[in-house]
């Protein structure tokens, strides 16, 4: 770390001069300002770690300057200098975020200790930031693997949306890593030092889900022997990840919408209103637009959550990532199983690349885990894999598999589900109304 810089702000020339010399002898970078305006200018010109600030100055006083400083540089350590042992002033300055205060004239030992402690705090702060950054990199590099343009695009979207508090919907087939992406968004966000709580909505019955999300009071229902916090409360100041959002009941959809709009709720069996500050991330492998069109998913909730969408490509659409992922899982299981399988034979790799992976990355991980159990060093062979080449022979293709046919059927389906409401259908299909009219004409679709 470079030398710690100290800015001395005092209207008395003798104070500035003597402190300047004192700190310079100690090897600090020292700056001086005779009033608040010079201090603000000095802060704009360069970075300062510590500011020694006189509380009483003509013009803008130290308290006011401290408030303004905080707007420009939140990290600066402010030590208040006061000629009066006024507890009120000291307490006010500490409340405003000052690190400490010292009464003039200072005992040199007290001053020396205070600056050393402040420097120690700065060092710890920098160390903390560096550790968190490296932790973040480790977490990400360990979990999201891939170099394909598709996965790079996903990571760009993660970086972009993480900076905001917007609700995110992650869409993708089962096993594509939706929860990992949710965690990556959380890890990159300002909320990363608070919890991310994950709930699999599809795995719980309606009554259980309600108590799981909102918590319950003691005696709210049979078996509720004590008060329990729900996931919303547990995720306060952090992120709530609702997986399989497309599977929740109409009643829960209504409840969820109400909470998302008011940011408050009551526990099951309780009447105390609880306020929460959460960022919501949802995931689904369902086509929510279809669910809205057929009435199984509330349109208002759809619009409430569908602020930012990240679509995860299935593994078969990013096959270039398969070798990287496969070797990542080999490393992982070599460590956990204490094995020494280092490679994949070319034939086995050929199988891995040609497989269609309906279960996506999760299926690939399971396949590698199994191969590591049954296989022998040094390399995974085709017979270690849980599928054979014969399975990979594609089904006979039909003329109805053409893109145009698929498009025609899909547009017809959406129009039917939306009762031929052109605006809604166009919105669901993600095209404009004119394009939809043109397609209807092209495919000769009729109501």
């Amino acid at each position, binding site marked *: 770390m470079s030398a710690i810089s100290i800015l001395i702000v005092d209207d008395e020339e*003798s104070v500035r001069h*003597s402190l300047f010399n004192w700190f310079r002898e100690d090897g600090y970078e020292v700056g001086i300002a005779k009033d608040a305006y010079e201090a603000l200018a000095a802060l704009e010109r360069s970075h300062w770690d510590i500011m020694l600030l006189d509380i009483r100055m003509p013009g803008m006083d130290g308290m006011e300057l401290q408030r303004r400083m905080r707007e420009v540089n939140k990290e600066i350590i402010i030590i208040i200098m006061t000629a009066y042992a006024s507890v009120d002033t000291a307490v006010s300055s500490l409340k405003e975020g000052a690190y400490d205060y010292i009464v003039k004239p200072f*005992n*040199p030992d007290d001053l020396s200790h205070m600056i050393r402690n402040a420097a120690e705090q700065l060092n710890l702060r920098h160390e903390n930031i560096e550790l968190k950054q490296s932790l973040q990199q480790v977490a990400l590099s360990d979990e999201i693997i891939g170099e394909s343009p598709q996965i790079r695009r996903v990571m760009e979207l993660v970086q972009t949306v993480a900076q905001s508090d917007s609700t995110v919907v992650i869409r993708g087939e089962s096993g594509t890593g939706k929860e990992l992406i949710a965690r990556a968004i959380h890890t990159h966000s300002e909320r990363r030092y608070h919890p991310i709580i994950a709930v699999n909505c599809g795995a719980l019955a309606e009554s259980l889900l309600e108590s799981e999300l909102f918590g319950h009071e003691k005696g709210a229902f049979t078996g509720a022997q004590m008060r329990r916090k729900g996931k919303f409360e547990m995720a306060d100041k952090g992120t709530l990840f609702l997986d399989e959002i497309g599977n929740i009941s109409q009643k829960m959809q209504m409840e969820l919408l109400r909470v998302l709009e008011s940011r408050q709720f009551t526990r099951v069996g309780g009447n105390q209103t609880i306020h929460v500050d959460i960022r919501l991330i949802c995931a689904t492998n369902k086509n929510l637009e279809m669910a809205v069109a057929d009435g199984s998913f509330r349109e208002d909730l759809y619009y409430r959550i569908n602020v930012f969408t990240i679509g995860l490509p299935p593994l078969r659409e990013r096959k270039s990532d398969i070798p990287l992922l496969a070797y990542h899982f080999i490393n992982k299981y070599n460590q956990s199983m204490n094995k020494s399988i280092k490679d994949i034979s070319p034939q086995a790799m050929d199988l891995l690349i040609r497989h269609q992976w309906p279960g996506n990355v999760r299926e690939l991980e399971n396949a590698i885990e199994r191969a590591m159990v049954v296989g022998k060093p040094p390399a995974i062979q085709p017979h270690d894999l849980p599928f054979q080449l014969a399975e990979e022979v594609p089904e006979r293709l039909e003329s109805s598999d053409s893109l145009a046919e698929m498009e025609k059927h899909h547009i017809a389906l959406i129009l039917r589900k939306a009762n031929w409401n052109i605006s809604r259908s166009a919105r669901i299909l993600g095209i404009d109304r004119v394009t939809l009219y043109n397609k209807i004409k092209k495919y000769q679709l009729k109501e």
Partner: protein
Amino acid sequence: MGQIHILPLLEIKAETRAQLLEAIEQQVQWPAAIEALEFDPRFAYDQIRGQYHSSQILLGLHSKLNRPQDKIIAIVPFDLYIPILTYVFGEAQLDGPAAVVSLFRLRPEFYGLPPVPARVVERLIKESIHELGHTFGLRHCPQPECVLHASTYVEEIDLKSHTFCPDCSALLQAAQAKRRTAAPAG
């Protein structure tokens, strides 16, 4: 080449003077002499604080020098201060000519302890070398045993040695070499 003028503003025993002179010459590696220049520090006295303003004393000492390559260090019996601090053991002009060291807080009697003359001499030697180090542009050293380690209470002076650590020695030699080159011939 310049000289260090040592100016005691109190009676110091001949033995102590010899010890001080020898230590300064050995450690600072610069010719030194104890002198009896006329210097009245009363102008730097602050009646309210009952202490002497050390920065003002430095300005007064500076005016006594004729040659830019010379250094001057005063040894004073009274308590020193700079406006923002309650006291200082001494002060120096960083990379300048003047320094001052006070015996006032180096004596155990100040802390209610019995006198230990030998310890006071040790402390005086360390603080004098420390302040003279500053006049050659050296800053405080993080090495606890180095004479340039900062001391804000008197026991800290006892903990360090009266010598420069290898790094500070090298810096001192470099600073002195620069001064020798810059000094006018003759």
